[in-house]
């Protein structure tokens, strides 16, 4: 059993949890993820390692309550325990030690991009961050991101905070600004956002990476459920990724594979809401 030692609400439907998992904490590196299962009947879901503390032996996870499992997770409190928690899985991110990086995090993607930005920052790189969400209430980790970024740009689709528009608008300005060299771009967020960024940066020939979050089962390369085409080759996100060259990823395939279980996800969520009487909330699947 893995105890939740800390819980914090970040925004309406975003929660942060610190979970006791000393073995995972000892090894965790930026870019990696864990898989957890809440209880005996639960499903295995992957979540990015947002932070880790070797001394305390804890792993921080951040999630948005979008489906049944994340809602159920969000309903747990400090002192409760998770049945299973395994990791660190996936490859650690490659970290250059100098240069200028632009980090683009959208919605659910702000949580997973934060540890990467922090790692770039600690490795001595200059990071310009752009974070965006549908509306101001959904923006998370603003202070944390600011602390590790040289500049932080904020946008909201509805204009309730920062730039009224998309992250790609701000990014475009930077791509066009020839006075500032960009060594690398990292984008994490909903698939449509990552796809837009990939298409946007390709003509500029700037190295762009994305962190993918497909459906997984085992997370160790034994099922192939997480397969994705990268440069025409089939890769398993859980062992070969989750970070890949954005210009090589087949986003179309990834998008439709992600939709494979939409009806079932909805069914599970509806049943959960009925049983816990907690209806409402955001039912969008991220």
């Amino acid at each position, binding site marked *: 059993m893995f105890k939740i030692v800390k819980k914090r609400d970040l925004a309406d439907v975003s929660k942060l949890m610190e979970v006791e998992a000393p073995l995972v904490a000892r090894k965790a590196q930026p870019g990696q993820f864990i898989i957890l299962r809440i209880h005996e009947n639960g499903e295995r879901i992957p979540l990015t390692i947002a932070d880790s503390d070797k001394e305390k032996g804890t792993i921080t996870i951040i999630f948005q309550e979008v489906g049944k499992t994340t809602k159920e997770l969000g309903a747990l409190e400090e002192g409760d325990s998770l049945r299973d928690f*395994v990791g660190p899985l996936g490859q650690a991110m490659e970290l250059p030690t100098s240069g200028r990086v632009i980090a683009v995090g959208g919605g659910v993607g702000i949580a997973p991009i934060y540890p990467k930005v922090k790692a770039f920052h600690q490795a001595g790189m200059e990071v310009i961050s752009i974070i965006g969400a549908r509306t101001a209430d959904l923006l998370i980790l603003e202070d944390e991101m600011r602390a590790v970024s040289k500049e932080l740009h904020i946008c909201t689709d509805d204009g309730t905070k920062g730039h009224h528009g998309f992250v790609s608008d701000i990014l475009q300005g930077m791509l066009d600004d020839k006075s500032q060299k960009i060594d690398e771009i990292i984008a994490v967020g909903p698939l449509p956002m990552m796809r837009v960024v990939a298409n946007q940066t390709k003509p500029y020939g700037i190295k762009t990476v994305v962190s993918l979050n497909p459906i997984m089962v085992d997370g160790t390369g034994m*099922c192939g459920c997480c397969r994705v085409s990268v440069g025409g080759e089939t890769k398993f996100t859980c062992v070969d990724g989750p970070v890949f060259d954005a210009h090589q990823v087949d986003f179309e395939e990834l998008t439709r594979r992600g939709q494979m279980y939409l009806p079932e996800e909805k069914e*599970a969520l509806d049943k959960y809401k009925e049983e816990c009487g907690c209806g409402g909330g955001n039912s969008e699947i991220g």
Partner: protein
Amino acid sequence: MKLDKDQIRQLRRMKEKHPMPEQAPEERIKNYNEVPFGYDAETAIKEANRCLQCKDAKCVEGCPVEVDIPAFIKLVAEGKFDEGIKKLKEKNSLPAVCGRVCPQESQCEALCLRGKKAEPVAIGRLERFLADYELAKGVETPPKPASTGKRVAIVGAGPAGLTAAGDLAKMGHEVVLFEAFHATGGVLRYGIPEFRLPKEKVLQREVDYIASLGVEIKTNVVIGKTLTVDELFEEEGFQAVFIGTGAGLPQFLNIPGENLNGVFSANEFLTRANLMKAYLFPEYDTPIKLGKKVAVVGAGNVAMDSARTSLRLGAEEVHIVYRRSDKEMPARAEEIEHAKEEGVVFNLLTNPVRIIGDENGWVTGMECIKMELGEPDDSGRARPIPIEGSEFVFDVDTIVIAIGQNPNPLIPQTTSGLKIGRWGTIEADEEGATSRPGVFAGGDIVTGAATVILAMGAGKVAARAMDKYLKAL
């Protein structure tokens, strides 16, 4: 029950095995319960009396772990079940499992003398009978041996790892078993379905027994990620390590369309269904997506399990697609038989060349080509050759690829000093010793995908060699 001489004489002439009662096909495809019910004591005694008690018993040669078959059968014949199970367990630590899943027809029963003129003795069914008899009665835990003070790590809780762990604990070593998944059993848990190997009634009991011997079981530890083999020695204080991580990497066909929605590896399909209990969705949270018409590519046990699972999940039509003929099908005879009874359609000498999808990326069909058999290839089986111009499109909406598994490269990649074979297997000698002192390996990780009994046997042999190694330290 006491049989008189006449009855025994009659039984020794009886041509057929005593049938094992089982669920009717039309009933069983609607549930996940075990198909055969097993022998009762009376039938077991009768079947045991069909055995001729050969002096030079050939059946034993067919058994990969050399169970003294005539001896345990004699004890069954005499109604001495407690002694019988003891005899059986001298060599086989997982009889309730092996009695159910061993390919007896190509092992012990293939060589049985009675099989020359009639059906062989039902060795597998008798094995299962004894094991179930013991499970029903409650398995006794042997007294704890004096501790040797040596620490051993076992990696992987499949049949190889479980067996090695149990044997080493009985020898007095301190044993910790690491498993990547949240549950033990390996293929016995995630691969072989409930209707063939009940999880609570059989598998969990075997695992509980291993734990009762003092083995500490740690799930959710991926060796190579959470901890490495090097760290097990250097930081965790283990003096020897056994690697039994199996062959869990799915092979795909590498044909166009394989990433379409509705195409699964058998590993994914079976893991969702068995380990995650998707057949109980939404009571269990993991779903499984299944259409109406399923094609399973391959004809081994994995393919049969996928096909029969599809039926139970509600598929209307299930097809096996296999590129060779029925003679080459590698599955156990009983599984093929059961699949046929349940209505699985066999499309032999047929090979997929392309998977076709609709505008939303869902599978709508599979283009196949007809094959004919040529000269034997490296594996000794006839090589299938495509018949030009015989392509046709199969209407299916779900495809399960069950054409084999390779060893997972995680441990080979992260362990220093291990010699790796051509197919990613770990090289080990007959005793399970690898190229690195103190590291032993056995089961599918050494042989490539094979059988439960071979994995169990390898765990047993390695345990003995490890004991020797540890004592010499």
